[in-house]
């Protein structure tokens, strides 16, 4: 769901790179927020609460805590502000996340 033709904006994107989400290889642009790449790939459920409800992106500016994911084993990463890097292993966070 990338926007290619916009009446006002031109999007300057970083190089296309690969990362994984729940073990599946996805493509995104380096430096964009993880959540943007996931949305572009059609992924909107980013975590589940301790009571099991699905949560996704809400504020997109690092303010709320709705979009937490686990990145390379580190929980509570704000996917709306964390820049995407090649090779990142991203997964849904279930519950409060565990510190290793």
């Amino acid at each position: 769901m990338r926007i290619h033709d916009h009446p006002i904006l031109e999007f300057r994107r970083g190089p296309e790179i690969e990362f994984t989400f729940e073990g599946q290889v996805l493509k995104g642009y380096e430096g964009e927020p993880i959540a943007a790449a996931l949305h572009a790939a059609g992924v909107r459920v980013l975590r589940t609460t301790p009571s099991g409800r699905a949560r996704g992106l809400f504020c997109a500016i690092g303010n709320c805590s709705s979009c937490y994911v686990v990145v390379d084993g580190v929980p509570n990463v704000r996917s709306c502000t964390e820049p995407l890097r090649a090779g990142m292993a991203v997964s849904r966070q279930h519950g409060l996340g565990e510190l290793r």
Partner: protein
Amino acid sequence: MTGTATAPLVEAAIIGGGPAGLCAALELARAGIRCLVVDRQHVLGGQLIKQTHRFFGSRSERAGQRGFEIGKQLAAELLQHDGVTVWLEGTAVGYYAEDRTLLVERDGALCRVHVEALILATGAAERALAFAGNDLPGVYGAGAVQTLMNVYGVRPGERAVMIGAGNIGLIVAYQLIQAGVEVAAVLEAAPAVGGYWVHAAKLARAGVPIMTSHSIVAALGTDQVTGVRATKLDAKWQPVQGSQFEVPCDLVCLAVGLSPLTELATLAGCQLAYVPELGGYVPWHDEEMQTTVPGVFVAGDAAGVEEASSAMIEGTLAGLAVVNYLRPHSQYAASRKRAAAQLAALRAGPTAERIRAGLLKLSDHRPRLAGTGGEGK
């Protein structure tokens, strides 16, 4: 946290690199005062970076320019000055008034910065609304959708329902159309459109129904939004029996107002006043934008939710006041008067009535300063 970062030698810090913070920093930079700008994003500009509509007002408020262009210009101008340090991807997590120490988290390290003056330009947060399923993926703040579309070029869904017909709701609904998203309806609980007619007219021309006296009852779906249930409201804002209907959509945008981000002001010990017209709790401040804590100033939405044009002038006012606070000088009164007059002109119209009422209320809340640390530097 690992390690500590080196603190820059600065006299003042500005928290937030949006329209207010950038304009405040510019005044300090022009006066040759070394300052630090902290912002948690990876780019300066705050919410200007996603604003694609042209600004109103007069030339002095950069009318006719688009928000993201203004943000770029302000940032570029600021970076031309020596003595300005910008910390991006940094979060100000505390301020200790007793020894004027600011605490910033950045690059996994905590850094202490001593400052003689602090400007809080932290902006605002989008409000949520109580309805069933409001936590479902697919329910977003309107600003979040704007960020996805206009900054990162990602379409947030296929079919949207916008809740709220204030300026943000109207503008973002139009921007959704520009991004190729169908807007099924705009629901507004009030009996009339709250935003400027020029924005509402654009939507009407695009065939989008703006349904006043209507609100959302529930977001439908189990793990993602599949639609909304809406209702008509009566004159007392109560749901009209039997008026419920469903609209299929995969995107619900909430444009129901903003609240000032006051966490840092609270940590700093600033007294807050509850002024609904300004968005809720706001740090009390005087005409010079100084809070009840000496040396701590506030500007922009953090001082009361308004718009980017007024945030820029408030930033200028706070910047001028801090320059004078650190280095009292004879030209201050004249330059302050100019900026204050510009702000008053911007708030003169009928759409700013609520803001004027809020500011009046705020001045009535003037705290008794004895024992609150309001004795001056």
